[in-house]
């Protein structure tokens, strides 16, 4: 299984990918995970590759072999389409953060949905930010998205919740578990009309 997580520095992508890797290991898989973080804190694009199966060699996913792309920001989704298998799932958080050239009016923010549709029909949009806000903490966005992702990977939620709990400080543990569960729920509702 090959998962790409994409977004912008500060959105909690590294933590989310750590949790997915941990869940996979506890299910007995070999796991490798790779991302570039040196400058992530400075608002640049962030991408994390998570791979798990019986034996994993390359820490980066070859082109055309990504099963799921989980994107924390709309435009960032479009950067990694070459990685997708033809039948890949693309989960997109409805959030637009204009890059510098768009901010100053030099370029347009692209229409991402159309671009992704040319690659795959399996697209799910999620308003993870709204859910996070409804829980009173916008930083739990990544747990909401992990909840959505989990419905495509693993029916057993215990390991997920345990790994989330272990990785987070006590005072934000419960709210992240709630966010994770709400993420699962929307995806289950969404299945009816999307996919």
């Amino acid at each position: 299984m090959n998962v790409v997580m994409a977004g912008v520095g500060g959105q909690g992508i590294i933590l989310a990918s750590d949790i997915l890797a941990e869940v996979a290991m506890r299910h007995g898989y070999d796991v490798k995970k790779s991302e570039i973080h040196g400058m992530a804190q400075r608002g640049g694009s962030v991408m994390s590759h998570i791979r798990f199966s019986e034996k994993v060699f390359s820490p980066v996913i070859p082109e055309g072999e990504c099963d799921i792309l989980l994107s924390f920001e709309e435009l960032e989704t479009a950067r990694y389409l070459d990685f997708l298998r033809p039948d890949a799932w693309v989960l997109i958080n409805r959030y637009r953060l204009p890059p510098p050239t768009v901010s100053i009016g030099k370029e347009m923010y692209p229409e991402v949905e159309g671009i992704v549709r040319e690659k795959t029909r399996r697209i799910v949009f999620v308003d993870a930010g709204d859910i996070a806000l409804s829980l009173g903490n916008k930083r739990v966005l990544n747990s909401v998205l992990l909840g959505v992702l989990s419905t495509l990977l693993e029916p057993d939620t215990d390991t997920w919740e345990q790994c989330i709990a272990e990785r987070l400080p006590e005072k934000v543990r419960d709210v992240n578990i709630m966010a994770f569960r709400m993420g699962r729920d929307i995806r289950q509702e969404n299945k009816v009309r999307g996919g």
Partner: protein
Amino acid sequence: MKKILSGNEAIARGAMESGVRFASAYPGTPSTEILETIAREFPEIHAEWTPNEKVALEVAAGASYAGARALAAMKHVGVNVAADPLMTLPYTLIRGGLVLVSADDPELFSSQNEQDNRNYARFAKIPMLEPSSSEEAKDFVKTAYRLSEEFSTPVMLRTTTRISHSKGIVELEEPEDPPRASLERHPVEWVMLPANARIRHPVVEERLNRLKDYSNSSEYNVMEINDASLGIIASGAAYQYAKEAFPDASFLKLGLSYPLPDVLVREFAAKVKELWVVEELDPFIERQVKELGIDCHGKDRIPMCGELNPDIVKKAISGSVNTGSSSLKLPARPPNMCPGCPHRGMLWALKKNKCFIAGDIGCYTLGFLPPLDAIDTCLCMGAGINHAHGMSKVLDGGKKKIAAVIGDSTFFHSGMTGLLNLAYNKGIALVVILDNRTTAMTGAQDHPGTGIALDGSKNIEIDLEALVKALGIDWVKRVDPYDVDTTRQKVKEALEQEGPAVIISSAPCVLLPSRRVSGVPLKVDSDKCTGCKVCLGIGCPSIEFKDKKAIILDTCTGCGICKAICPFDAIGGDV
């Protein structure tokens, strides 16, 4: 017990399991987390940030001379700074194991070049191990200590960004008993006067021959014979990419990649029909294979520049045409100075004074990006002051508007000698020390200017102003870069000085708890905003331009730099 660790965390773990007593480093991507992990998880190891990599290697060598196992970690270009001790250390007697971790950065994710530090192993005539996973990173550290002590040599452990920052499963083990420190004297082996060094050079050469024999029998240099029509020699991350691309091929996997195991290479070459060397950057292994008189493919098809991946390797070896990735043009999202970054105020003031700005290595280098366009040179740590001095000496008319900017941590690293030179040789350039109280670019590490050591203890805090004066500069002023008008005025004043001038631009990094911004976003009064775009000139990610007006986003920290420069007083809110 199993745990998912990054390559850097695995190296730290390997150091602990090896009984390392002393670890030193200057922060540098992608090596920084090695010392951070040691400090956080293994307090039994004395770990310290040093002002630069030369110091890091020399203090580690001292610990080794005293019989303790020691580790020095740095990024690839850091080894250049440490190259002086590195080239002579192999002549000397190594008591406690001494390991130098060099974290290279193919693809230049966060560096000024992509030099291949495997060349240093050959240059310094020391053995080199190249892990290809986190598990190996830990195991190879332990092997490196055994090798270092058995052969009395420094050992290089070379990683790349993909190994340092990728994570994988590692089996944790119990620590070994560390060798005890004790004082001995070995004058012939430790005092590198010509008479002694002449005796030691043959020792290095003879050791290298013994290491070659060892390399041929090392358990980390292994043949995997499968389909014999394709044979691949590879090490490090390149092995994983090649294995992914050609799982059925035969492999000679090199873990101890220098000295090259010549017997194994000959044996492997004889077994396979087509021989390839798959490696990132230089043809380091390929050249040595060819020196043995063995023909092989390598850099004739595999790129010399940038990082490899399974796709590049597959296309190169199978000879398929590179169809290229989809040519979708998307707006780029480069890293930028943060909203509220104090560097912005100072760079703006220098630009308004029409300065040529010699830059250095740090977050402020990002001030190069449009629309700020404020950095005119960036070469290596500490170079900016020297560029400025050299330029101002040869430009006609004496006083020109040449300025250098350098961060506090970079100043301690290698800016001090440049400033000393500037004072000594009657320089006239303006030097600005961007004192944000941290090593920001690598994720906020402390340094002598903060006085906080890696273990969190508070030691001597260096007084920057007094230090600058002691280096021979009389005109030293401190400014608050958020006070844009005063800053601009002070720069003007500094440029008018006959002699050298130093401005200390003093405000903590906006990512530190001690930051001096309100955190409350400012607001644009759209009636007053004329759409002049002056505020866009500072390149703040929190300012957007929409429908011919500036808008301030909720990521604004309220630093007030845009408010101060707005000609129409259109930006409101408390600063």
